[in-house]
């Protein structure tokens, strides 16, 4: 009996439920756009993944919905990709600067102890 009810519901509900569930997912995914700069790289990566999955769902919708929501999703996804690249670039820049400072410190120490020829190795 329970199985019958379950099977009946699983065949009748998907379209109606799925019609709205992707909208909820879309709103949750793109709601983070204004705070994108505050998100971590992992969070941004996860959001980009959600955008990709949503894109496949929206592509099944009718023409008008597809046209409107694909554009909105694209703007939201592109912003996340952009911010992720900004953060990666900033991290790379910070790493480069840290390495430079460390090298300078090492050279200074070597010079301090009068091991100048060795400093040239760095």
């Amino acid at each position, binding site marked *: 009996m329970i199985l019958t009810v379950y099977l009946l519901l699983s065949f009748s509900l998907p379209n109606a439920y799925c019609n709205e569930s992707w909208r909820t997912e879309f709103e949750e995914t793109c*709601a983070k*756009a*204004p705070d994108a*700069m505050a998100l971590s790289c992992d969070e941004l990566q996860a959001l980009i993944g959600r955008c990709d999955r949503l894109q496949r769902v929206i592509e099944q919708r009718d023409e008008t919905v597809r046209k409107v929501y694909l554009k909105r999703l694209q703007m939201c996804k592109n*912003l996340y*990709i*952009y911010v992720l690249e900004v953060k990666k670039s900033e991290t790379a820049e910070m790493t480069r600067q840290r390495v430079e400072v460390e090298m300078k410190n090492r050279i200074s120490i070597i010079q301090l102890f009068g091991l100048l020829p060795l400093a040239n190795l760095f």
Partner: protein
Amino acid sequence: MRRVLCVTLILFIGAAMASASGTKKRKLPPHDFGSVVINNYSQQAGMPPVVFDHWVHRKNFTCRLCHVDIGFGMTAGSTRIRAADNIKGYYCGTCHNGRISVNNKKVFEACPKECSREDYKKCVKCHAVVRDTAKEEEFYRFAETMPKEHFGNGINWEKAEEEGLIKPIDQLEGVSIMKGKFKVQPDFSLKAKVEGMPDIVFSHRKHTVWNGCELCHPEIFVGIRRGNTKYSMVELFDGKYCGVCHDKVAFPLTDCQRCHDKPV
């Protein structure tokens, strides 16, 4: 021989003048500044093209609401709006449905389902057949109450918003993803290429009031690292970067001191 030379000279000067006048941009009257002609399918359907007036809409809504939440493109004709889309409640039909009110005024319904003689009167509100002098007068009545500027619409929209003369709506229930206030990115300065021109102070705050983040990044401004992208006025006048908005809807690029305002 002399006659031939004279004629050649006159022809040359005439050709130069003709080509100059052919490429010269006519300065638009204030009520026309920001108007966009939309004609993807209108003429095919036997209708005049739509003339969309930005000023009517930007006094009530932010750029972000229409260009991000509702999904309008940033260039004329790029959205490919159909009457069917409007009837389904998308694009223009998001607000133009005969049900929504803005500033206690009901917004007329666009693209009715049935096309009776009575309904045709609604069509010509947008698919304009003749010049609408009533709309022009409405513009000048509105502009009288707004802070002035020399170019574009003659209205300083930024000041109007700051002084609370207009309160553009940024989110619509059922359309926008409701968000709270976000942290605005800091302002920064850009060095002018031309010697003697004051540097530009770019204000993120002034732009995010109207645009949010996703309208500009990365579609208009792709550069990741500040200073990597070199902007030139030629590119701006060609409609790239700042020129996507400024010169079409926002204040024109000829208003130099609005941007080049960092003290030398």
